[in-house]
């Protein structure tokens, strides 16, 4: 179908209304940490039952885009990630907010997310069936190697010393083995406590190490009336900033789309890899983690690029790539549409292309609404600390609790709050721990699966070409980053000597 004709069909007042309603609902839900796009869609699916299929899908894509966007607002203003990918937005977004550049961070984040989202939808539009066959080439062996690359990024880009990053990543991996064994369904390291069979759900833990830990740290600073963030500043991104961030945003979008296409890849991994790549090619890597706009925008673009990418296996194979698309699949099936090859051979074309057009519009709506709503949403962070800190603590607990209502999760958030606080205090990178937690289960189960599929022969990880390339890239990244940090330390030492 013609692009223009399709856009014309979708560009009706009713369609726009459902997109805006979805995006508003998504933005509201996304502000509450723990309410991820997945939960928002699951909660609102019943409302879409009476709509026609197109409007219901438009509303759902609106929710998706909206909640992605507001997740990054809480990351920037309150250091409270709404989802695992939001953890990466914190690295440079929160330092920018503390410097009084919150508006700039939010505006640039909105532009990067919208670009990533639109880029991935266009890729989906043009190549989804071709790309779906690539997704099928990924066996557990390749997934293991992608996860290794992701973990290497954590070590390479976080922290002041590689040893500390490695320690924090390993801690994350270790915590990840607590709970029900992902393959055998038997409890391990649960010390006889029934709750520990749930393991350490990473969303509750990540909210703990970032948001709760920050509450504990700020509680030490005297002065109850003082503010953490004093100004929001200009929100609309300047032309100069857009030009400066174009390359990282473009690369982030590509990375996000690729990772999104792999079922089970996930937004956090894409964001981390995009962040690592942006830092690697940057001329000013020392600014990363201190408020670099490149470091902010690359992962934001990747995070939203995943959204479009994840629709590739969903629509063309009928296989959901992550939890959010699994819920979308449910919603589609309820509407009588079964995603898969049949959708593209004519039978579903009248729905697929309007859906693509709707996803484009949802991203545009998110950009416009995001930029206009940014100031009222963000001004919450201007409240005095005596109000803000308890509010963040409450939100963190709600965030952990809300999806499942299990009190055990409150303990996870609290314990990881203390762990996060101690890590910051002793200068261990919290982000590396977070990525270890997120990637640990992917790494472990695919390693075991890969070995089971090949009679325990470990050499397949090197003899299968895609896997071999990924592992080589991981090794190269590690070597370069260790060598780089040695050299910069020597340089710094030499500089110190010369100034004495």
């Amino acid at each position, binding site marked *: 179908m013609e692009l223009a004709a399709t856009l014309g069909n979708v560009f009706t007042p009713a369609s726009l209304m459902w997109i805006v309603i979805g995006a508003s609902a998504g933005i509201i839900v996304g502000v509450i940490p723990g309410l991820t796009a997945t939960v928002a869609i699951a909660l609102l699916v*019943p409302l879409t039952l009476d709509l026609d299929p197109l409007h219901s899908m438009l509303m759902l894509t609106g929710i998706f885009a909206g909640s992605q966007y507001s997740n990054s607002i809480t990351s920037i203003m309150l250091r409270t990630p709404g989802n695992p990918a939001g953890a990466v937005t914190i690295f440079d977004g929160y330092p920018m907010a503390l410097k009084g550049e919150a508006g700039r961070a939010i505006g640039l984040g909105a532009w990067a997310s919208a670009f990533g989202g639109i880029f991935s939808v266009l890729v989906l539009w043009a190549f989804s069936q071709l790309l779906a066959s690539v997704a099928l080439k990924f066996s557990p062996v390749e997934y293991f190697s992608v996860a290794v690359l992701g973990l290497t990024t954590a070590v390479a880009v976080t922290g002041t010393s590689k040893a500390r990053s490695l320690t924090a990543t390993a801690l994350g991996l270790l915590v990840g083995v607590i709970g*029900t064994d992902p393959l055998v369904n*038997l409890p391990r390291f649960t010390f006889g406590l029934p709750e520990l069979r749930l393991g350490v759900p990473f969303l509750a833990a990540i909210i703990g190490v970032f948001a709760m830990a920050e509450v504990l740290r700020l509680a030490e600073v005297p002065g109850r009336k003082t503010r953490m963030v004093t100004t929001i500043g200009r929100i609309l991104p300047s032309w100069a900033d857009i030009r400066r961030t174009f390359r990282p945003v473009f690369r982030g979008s590509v990375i996000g789309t690729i990772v999104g296409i792999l*079922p089970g890849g996930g937004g956090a991994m894409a964001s981390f890899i995009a962040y690592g790549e942006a830092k690697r090619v940057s001329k000013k890597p020392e600014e990363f983690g201190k408020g670099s706009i490149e470091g902010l925008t690359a992962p934001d673009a990747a995070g939203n690029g995943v959204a479009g990418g994840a629709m590739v296996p969903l629509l063309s194979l009928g*296989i959901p790539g992550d939890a959010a698309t699994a*819920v979308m699949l449910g919603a589609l099936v309820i509407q009588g549409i*079964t995603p898969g*090859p049949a959708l593209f051979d004519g039978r579903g074309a009248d729905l697929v292309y309007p859906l693509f057009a709707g996803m484009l519009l949802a991203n545009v709506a998110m950009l416009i609404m995001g930029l206009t709503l940014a100031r009222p949403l963000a001004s919450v962070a201007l409240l005095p600390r005596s109000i803000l800190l308890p509010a963040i603590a409450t939100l963190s607990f709600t965030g952990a609790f809300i999806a*499942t209502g299990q009190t055990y999760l409150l303990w996870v958030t609290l314990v990881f709050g203390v762990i996060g606080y101690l890590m910051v205090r002793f200068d261990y990178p919290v982000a590396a721990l977070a990525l270890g937690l997120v990637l640990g289960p992917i790494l472990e189960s695919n390693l075991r699966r890969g070995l089971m599929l090949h009679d325990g022969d470990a050499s397949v990880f090197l003899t299968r070409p895609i896997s071999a390339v990924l592992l080589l890239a991981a090794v190269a990244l590690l070597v370069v980053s260790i060598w780089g940090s040695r050299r910069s330390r020597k340089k710094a030492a030499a500089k110190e000597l010369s100034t004495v």
Partner: protein
Amino acid sequence: MRTTPGTGRRSAAPWIAAAVAVGTILSGCGAAGPYPDGTVELMIPWSAGGGSDLSARLFVSELEEPLSATISPANEPGANGAIGWGSLAQADNDGYSVGLLTYDVLSNEILDPTSPALEDFDILAQYEQQELYFYVPSDSPYETAADLEGSNLTVGTSGMGGIDHQAPAALARELGVEWEYVPFDGQADGLTNLLGGNIDAFVFTPTVAAQYVEDGTLRILGTFASERTEEYPDTATFVEQGYDVPPIASFRGIAAPAGLDEEVRATLVEAIETTAQDEEYLAAAAEAGNTPRYRTGEDFEAYMNELRPTIADLLQEMGLAQAAG
């Protein structure tokens, strides 16, 4: 007026708090009327958005009217359902706590001796059932179950010891072969790997793989159902093909903690039975790809009790059964 506006505002706060507190206490003091009088909570032991979750939410949204009560679904996922069923078994048996029962409740009992057994529940009814089919890629050399004799397959499952592991294991036992089982993250992940050629076979419920059978990518070798199904009337059951497999099927039912009051139970059962035959529910379920199949509490319990020893044997042979402690 001696008080300044500021202090006046401050002194009002405790009164507001007191009013809220007293109000809350009073609202809890309602006289106990006939059941149901209040919100009934439905425990779902699976995470929000999954197949079982959507099915249960759909069913109870239609159940509210005949029961004349608000039903609020609450997800308590984890440990293959054991967490949710554990808390349902310990909930008050006053009819305000009910829960979704699925096949894994039977497996858990054997896989993990700390999880609740069937006797801990008052089984109210089954409302849906999905049959299981054995899928292979169309380019594989196997056409019927008999071709599988002497085969050495790598079979995907969506979890060690789960229903889609037990079913092929039961078939393999009848065939006298030993297959290798690789657990994936659910059926979608398994489907990707079956289509990608990483595994030789997978046992699915029909919704997951239907269109790949239609377009000729996958082939069904037989069903575990006790008789031919409406969906695939041309597919022979394994029993017909001479392999005596148990009637393992994925089911969804409603249960309450054991020891319900007779009247409360009768009210619940009547409302569930009405819903299960309700046109609106049947239409919505069909649209969602669910397959309604009603069994009374007694029939449902008998069916599960019939399966129990078979499952225990299978899991024992698979080396997954834990000694009851």
